[in-house]
């Protein structure tokens, strides 16, 4: 690895050098996200008293995928009496998106793999949005072709060249490729594996997985340990698995639990009538297309700029106190049932009466920070030598995760300007330290690093980038390190807190669209049952 690091930094210097010689100034842009002020306010607790009490049967706090999925489930049951209150000025949470004159682009989550057989609610949601045609629970449904990622889906920059697909092939010895095959066979076995009750070893949603110790034990060791124990030592295989973990969990194989790492490869069993099994659904705004469509439906019941700072409940109702930015005052909401769809680590700060077991559960697990940068380019990036530009473009020798092309799904005769979304998960250092670095580093420093990183594959990048906007996610993803997903301490979260139900991916211990959706739908069904609305379940 040393030589590579050395080369990477040389390249960075070379590119930075080029830039400076030509005196090319850094492209302009904004630094957004990671709002520290609000966090401090929550800790200081110097809020005014409510000037008004509003009553609503069901209150949803937080409008990420979890909160929006809860709203979707309520409406499907014909129940429309809810309000959604969201802290930020726009909804979507980690699946938010931005837009400029060139294209819409993701600020966070950018794709959804074909939903698994067990992701029943995700399938129904997609059918409802017109993205899935026919019976949502068919083995191989059809998906809207405009949302299926157009070919070519991904490519990897390695040894100075681009190759198709992300499994490294250029310059990889036969012995290593044999390990690829063996690894994929092992993952296929895990994918098929079921216990005596017919539960899959690795299901998505994870809660539907078997609880037998032979698999749960994998949550005690790291993925790297598992690879070593099973005779996998190919450096390129390690790179690939490490990349997968960084991309999905924000932690590398040295930290991710083997259960989580294997889950990534083994849980996906979704198929399509009109696409290969490894296809993904995406749009210019990433998963923001789902946010956009759902948000429209509930716009009349949504309030943004609403900071929940106190949650409580008594025998009659649950209550939440909000600082409403637009009205510049404090309002109390009283609801029969409350869906907490904001991150769980926030809860102990705002709910002084939260029982100790739930406090401990909410605090178990920490979060990996992420940085997402959107580069607006005057023209398509040079394709480079080798495989042509794909949707997802990954650099082998990079601390980051590469970039996706926002205009990839566009049908156009001529290439034009575009937006590249660059992802960086801070997986190499302790989260707290990484978060401080993320929040204290100026945009210019990030911009220089990002341009140097991409410059190794696209020497012209500094010249064609017209804007470079940086978005920071301080607590992006819960880290599934050993002992997180299946820890006894976290189990009370699934039951909720009397009138308060939890609808966030944090509950699952893995930050995935399907988990957020499952938690949201599940919370909504608990609410409906409490309200004695007759419901079946969308969860199977």
């Amino acid at each position, binding site marked *: 690895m040393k030589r590579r690091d050395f080369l990477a930094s040389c390249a960075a210097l070379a590119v930075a050098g080029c830039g400076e010689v030509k005196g090319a100034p850094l492209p302009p842009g904004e630094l957004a996200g990671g709002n520290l002020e609000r966090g401090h306010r929550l800790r200081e607790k110097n809020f005014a008293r409510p000037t008004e009490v509003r009553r609503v049967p069901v209150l949803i706090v937080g409008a990420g995928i979890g909160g929006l999925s809860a709203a979707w489930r309520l409406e499907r049951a014909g129940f429309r009496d809810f309000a959604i209150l969201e802290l930020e000025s726009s909804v979507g949470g980690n699946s938010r998106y931005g837009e400029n004159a060139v294209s819409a682009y993701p600020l966070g989550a950018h794709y959804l793999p074909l939903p698994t057989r067990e992701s029943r609610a995700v399938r129904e949601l997609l059918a409802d949005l017109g993205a899935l045609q026919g019976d949502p629970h068919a083995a191989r449904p059809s998906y809207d*072709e405009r949302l299926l990622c157009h070919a070519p889906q991904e490519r990897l920059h390695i040894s100075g060249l681009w190759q198709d697909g992300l499994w490294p092939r250029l310059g990889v010895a036969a012995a290593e490729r044999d390990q690829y095959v063996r690894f994929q066979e092992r993952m296929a076995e895990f994918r098929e594996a079921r216990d005596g009750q017919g539960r899959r070893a690795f299901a998505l949603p994870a809660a539907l997985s078997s609880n037998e110790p032979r698999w749960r034990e994998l949550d005690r060791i790291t993925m790297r340990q598992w690879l070593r124990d099973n005779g996998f030592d190919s450096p390129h295989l390690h790179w690939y698995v490490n990349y997968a973990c960084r991309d999905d969990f924000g932690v590398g194989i040295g930290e991710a639990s083997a259960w989580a790492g294997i889950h990534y490869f083994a849980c996906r069993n979704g198929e399509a009538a009109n696409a290969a099994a490894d296809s993904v659904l995406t749009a210019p705004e990433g998963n923001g297309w789902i946010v956009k469509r759902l948000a429209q439906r509930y716009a009349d019941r949504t309030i943004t700029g609403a900071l929940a700072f106190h949650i409580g409940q008594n025998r009659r109702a649950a209550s939440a106190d909000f600082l409403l930015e637009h009205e510049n005052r404090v309002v109390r909401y009283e609801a029969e049932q409350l869906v907490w769809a904001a991150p769980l680590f926030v809860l102990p700060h705002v709910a002084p009466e939260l029982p100790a077991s739930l406090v401990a559960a909410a605090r178990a697990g920490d979060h990996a920070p992420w940085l997402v940068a959107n580069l607006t380019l005057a023209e398509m990036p040079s394709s480079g030598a080798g495989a042509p530009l794909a949707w997802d473009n990954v650099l082998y020798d990079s601390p980051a995760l590469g970039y996706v092309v926002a205009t990839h799904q566009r049908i156009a005769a*001529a290439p034009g300007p575009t937006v590249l979304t660059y992802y960086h998960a801070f997986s190499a250092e302790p989260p707290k330290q990484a978060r401080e670095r993320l929040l204290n580093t100026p945009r210019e420093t990030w911009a220089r690093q990002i341009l140097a990183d991409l410059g190794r594959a696209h020497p012209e990048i500094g010249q064609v980038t017209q804007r470079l906007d940086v978005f920071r996610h301080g607590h992006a993803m819960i880290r599934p390190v050993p002992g997180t997903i299946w820890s006894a301490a976290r189990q009370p979260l699934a039951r909720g807190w009397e009138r308060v139900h939890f609808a966030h991916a944090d509950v699952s211990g893995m930050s995935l669209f399907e988990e957020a959706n499952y938690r949201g739908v599940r919370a909504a069904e608990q609410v409906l049952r409490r309200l004695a609305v007759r419901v079946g379940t969308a969860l199977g």
Partner: protein
Amino acid sequence: MAEQAAGAASSRRLQFALLASVFVVAACGLAYELIAGALASYLLGDSVTQFSTVIGAYLFAMGVGSWLSKFVERDLIGRFVQIELAVGLLGGFTAAGLFVAFAAHAGPFRVLLYGAVFAVGVLVGLEIPLVMRILKRDVAFNELVARVLSFDYLGALAVSILFPLLLAPHLGLVRTGFLFGLLNAAVALWALWLFRDRLARRTGLLAAGLSSVAVLAGGFAGAGQLTTMAEGWIYADDIIHAENTPYQRIVVTRWRDDVRLFLNQNLQFSSKDEYRYHEALVHPGLAGMAHARRVLVLGGGDGFAVREILKYPNIEAVTLVDLDPAMTRLFSSASLLRQLNGDALNSPKLKVVNADAVRWLEDHADAFDFIVADFPDPSSYSIGKLYSAPFYRLLTRHLAPHGRLVVQATSPFYARQSFWTVVATLEDAGLKTAPYHALVPSFGEWGYILAGREAYASPETYTVPLRFLTAQTTAAMFDFPADMARVDAEVNRLNNQVLVRTFESEWRHVVR
């Protein structure tokens, strides 16, 4: 003592020199490979696989080379100099040679291309192990490997940065080739001087080195003329117009009464037989549509399709959407070209829109009785999308109730699978299809597909003046002989782009 120190110093200098040469050698190696890949893409079309195959062949050849290096036993330095000169000459002349060979139709181009790539690869593969063995005497092995490899990487890195940024655009491929050839030769001369005490046949090598430099320098100086000359051969005829637009390179040639248009080196029409192509494109569909008033033409900035359409007095308005304003400007202003297209682009019935067809279709709601989709062949992923089911659904939204569209769909003879892929795709978009073909000598057997919500019947008579089509022969065009008959084909979807892959592999067998 003093002597030892001097010895150590000179050996350090040697090491440094050899490592520097590794840098140059690696740089040259990658440069030749990039040049070959770029040239192949340039000459054989914007292929998606050109680079990958060139690179694959090159990596393989390097492996062969390093294996062969085992057999070099004596006189390592002498061999190193010889190989260096050979790489310089071979690599230096690769681009020029291939270009000329392509233009002069000298031999099977692909064989030459991969032959050259392979030979250069083998020689470059030989070099690094040789340098290692020369250095081995003075440096510990592990460190040696690390050092040599990092200089190897650095050299490659330098070129991968410089090539697209500076070299290819400013020097051109042919001249860049000579430049790297000169660098290789310079390394050889340098090694000759450094090791002057250890070499036996110095004078011979020196003479070879100096003449290589002379030849390569000559090539470097004459590269411009060479390129012009070879381009002249490619087009065979006089170039009467050449222009680079943001979208393509437009070249118009003329020889006696034959005028030809090339876009990115691909022949678009020859005035000798373009009427066959355009009559076949327009009339089988439009002749039976007495109710037709409004027609849309996508692509076809040369105005020939419009010329045919305007033969029908019932047509009131034609909209032509072509991306490249340079094309429509050229064909509406140059008198020779206006003669050819009957001045169609200046017709008061015509509206020219220079825009991306898809954008325009998405932004407008107009419905048309007849739509002509005359796009370039599906040789890249972005053009492949213009032959996909979602695009055809978009087109269908612009079809009037009894409307019909026609698609040019490459050759059912040379690219049979591709042609029927387009048919399957139109059917997947919910349209009834009527595929047909016509012989256009410049292109060979060419394919078209009519599609609409209703079934199609070929016209009983033609009421407008035609040079090629008759009602009888038109009916026969819808019959496909056995060697072009329908084959099972997958639908071209945006997420598989089978058409681009199929087209690529089918035309690979046709192009030399």
